[in-house]
């Protein structure tokens, strides 16, 4: 196979736009405060293992303070405020995010390990767009078609993951605030920094104290938040395992819950698909954000007649991907977010070999420091293999084949998940037929991993319930 690798001079984005403090407190009632019963931990860059800052791990008392501030603000300021005033605050946040977009993008890339190109072109603009979209809903809730007199639920406890730290915070905060709720946000342990920068933006936007609170910490902090009796609504994005534990723990509490959990999406390529476009879509589907994407297209279902051609083209394309410094503007594949996640990916990839699949990775060099995993393709995968059933949450693609549309549907739906699916074909009627039969909350046709604030996103089955985005996204935050 001829190598088509070009050489590129490094083009690193400057870190100088980010001014990191040595230590960050919790954002409670409009101010950054020291933890009272919590402790401090560090967050590091997964690409260099360099410690970026110390961050507070909120204890139960800290969570209680934040929830109390949110409840006060909901009752006294944010709840009674006319929707058109709330809207203007959210428009302000959207604008401030746009103004500080470079800073947010660089910090996201540093703390998460994702390529700056993705943070800059996807995470940050989409996060700002989300605030802009929901800002406009704040004074139009009665027209959302959810009920004649929608009311806020109260205090929302929101726990977000490390794969899209800022974007997931925006997905949670924007609709909740537009609907008149106040929020306590718990960012992931390994990626707290952009949520704290967002808290600064909230300060700059002069939101009333307590409307948005950020409590950093690990699973304990999240559990304390979810369990707090004054939290009326819980929104969680993360693993199916933790989601189930949260659903179980909320039994009998009457709290409202939405869950956005794992996935094992099928990306289905028919023999009439535009091949090079499909190959780009497959790469974007599974290698975007190092595969740390709940809706990642981790199962490639390719029609048997073109399977060899697709896999060959895919390998050729993977040889051109550049893995390395996330801040380099040429980088395609960044660092794996944490050593724990790397170990999980390695374990599952080993199981693929042990169960008899054929493993292939491009020959790209891997930096010495940091956590890295080469893009990996498994062929000869049977549906029963762990790599075809379990969410890997890493840059690992399992290739399976099918002969007929019916078989593709059966194989695609043969999972306990149901978050997303992809269909590649030039035939419009087939796209819609497939979309009808796939049990998944989002179906992309001739594209993948595309998001928009107007477009509802969320899962079927064990991928969770509730939708984020669009008119539907308001429902989770309103009593109707």
């Amino acid at each position, binding site marked *: 196979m001829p190598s088509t690798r070009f050489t590129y001079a490094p083009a690193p984005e400057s870190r100088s736009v980010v001014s990191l403090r040595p230590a960050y407190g919790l954002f409670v009632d409009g101010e950054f405060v020291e933890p009272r019963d919590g402790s401090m931990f560090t967050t590091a860059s997964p690409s260099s293992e360099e410690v970026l800052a110390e961050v507070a791990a909120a204890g139960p008392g800290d969570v209680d303070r934040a929830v109390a501030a949110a409840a006060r603000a909901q009752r006294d300021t944010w709840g009674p405020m006319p929707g058109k005033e709330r809207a203007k605050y959210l428009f302000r946040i959207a604008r401030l995010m746009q103004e500080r977009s470079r800073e947010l993008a660089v910090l996201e890339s540093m703390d998460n390990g994702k390529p700056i190109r993705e943070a800059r072109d996807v995470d940050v603009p989409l996060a700002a*767009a989300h605030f802009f979209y929901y800002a406009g809903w704040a004074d139009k809730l009665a027209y959302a*078609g959810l*009920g004649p007199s929608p009311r806020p639920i109260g205090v929302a406890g929101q726990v977000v993951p490390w794969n899209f730290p800022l974007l997931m915070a925006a997905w949670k905060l924007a609709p909740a605030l537009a609907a008149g709720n106040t929020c306590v946000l718990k960012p992931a342990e390994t990626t707290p920094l952009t949520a704290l920068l967002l808290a600064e933006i909230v300060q700059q936007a002069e939101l009333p104290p307590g409307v948005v609170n950020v409590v950093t910490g690990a699973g304990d902090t999240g559990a304390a938040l979810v369990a707090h009796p004054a939290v009326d609504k819980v929104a969680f994005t993360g693993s*199916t395992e933790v*989601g*189930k*534990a949260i*659903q*179980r723990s*909320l*039994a*009998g509490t*009457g709290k409202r819950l939405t*869950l956005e*959990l794992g996935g094992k999406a099928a990306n289905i390529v028919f023999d009439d698909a535009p091949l090079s476009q499909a190959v780009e879509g497959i790469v974007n589907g599974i290698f975007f954000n190092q595969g740390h994407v709940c809706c990642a297209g981790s199962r490639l279902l390719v029609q048997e007649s073109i399977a060899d051609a697709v896999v060959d083209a895919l390998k050729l394309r993977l040889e051109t991907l550049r893995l390395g410094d996330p801040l380099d503007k040429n980088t395609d594949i960044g660092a794996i977010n944490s050593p724990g996640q790397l170990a999980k990916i390695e374990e599952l990839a080993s199981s693929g070999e042990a169960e008899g699949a054929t493993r292939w990775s491009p020959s790209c060099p891997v930096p010495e420091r940091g956590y890295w995993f080469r893009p990996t393709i498994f062929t000869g995968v049977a549906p029963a293999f762990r790599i075809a059933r379990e969410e890997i949450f890493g840059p690992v693609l399992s290739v399976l084949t099918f002969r007929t549309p019916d078989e593709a549907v059966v194989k695609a739906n043969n999972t*306990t998940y149901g978050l997303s699916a992809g269909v590649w074909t030039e035939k*419009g009627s087939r*796209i*819609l037929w497939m*979309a009808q039969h796939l049990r*998944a*909350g*989002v*179906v*992309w*046709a*001739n*594209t993948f991993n*595309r998001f*928009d604030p*107007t*477009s*509802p*996103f*969320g899962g*079927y*089955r*064990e*991928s*969770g*319930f509730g*939708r984020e985005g*669009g*008119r*539907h996204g308001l429902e989770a935050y309103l009593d*109707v």
Partner: protein
Amino acid sequence: MSDAPKVPATPGELAAVAVPPPSTSGERARLAVQKTYKLFLGGAFPRSESGRSYAVRAANGAHLANAALASRKDVRDAVVAAGKARGPWSAATAYNRGQVLYRVAEMLEDRRDQFAELVASGEGVTHAAALTTVAVAVDRWVWYAGWADKIAQVAGSSNPVAGPYFNFSLPEPTGVVGILAPQESSLLGLVSVLAPVLTAGNTAVVVASELRPLPAVALAEVLATSDLPGGVANILTGRTVELAPVLARHRDVDALDLAGAPVDIEVELEQASADNVKRVLRRDATQGAWDAEPTPRRMLAFVETKTVWHPIGI
């Protein structure tokens, strides 16, 4: 089955009881033909596989009939039947679903007197009051039937995404829904929880009111003669505390309606539901008032929103 409860009525006792009251029309009293109350499962009317039954009493304590005492196995069989019926029912056109459901209302209307008898004796209300309740139940079924081809328009959307895609969202049925029917309101309550689930395109496994199951069995007979495909609605009679946990734990049940859940096992049912991330519709403060006008809420609790990105290009 060793765990069968005491069954008070022997066949001898049963013969002495008349439901409906013995017909005395005509020249001389004639011995009424009594009905065996059975389960409704996969479109058929089997007895419980366990062979058990239990005595159903009127509000005044009089023995009315024996109902089948469904077992855990009956629940599992019903879930299988509902699972098989799911594909065709959810794929039926909305217009067709609406017509089938409207047909149910027609059949109900025909049998208003029979239902009024059962409601009056079971709930201890006057025949006139029961007739009113039955009328509300029939009208409610008509109300839902009319929703079948409107939910997608009301709950769906086209989404103006920033890119060359036609992006739209549609509600789709969640799948197999377990329903614990209200305990007090034996017909109107049941209709109020079953109709929205079916209208939204789901299939259902219903545990009828434990103490007042007879209207549910009569409703099954209506469903069976209304072109509703077998397995779309399955109705079990028996002990809710025994059957509900089986539904809550079952991995092929996609959602659970707790309308008639006994208070002391409600938390346990919610917890068990988490094992496969079931959608759970809890009881709420308003649900007791089954004669209140319904809203689309109970249908929307059992749909999933699917969003499709369809490319635009030449």
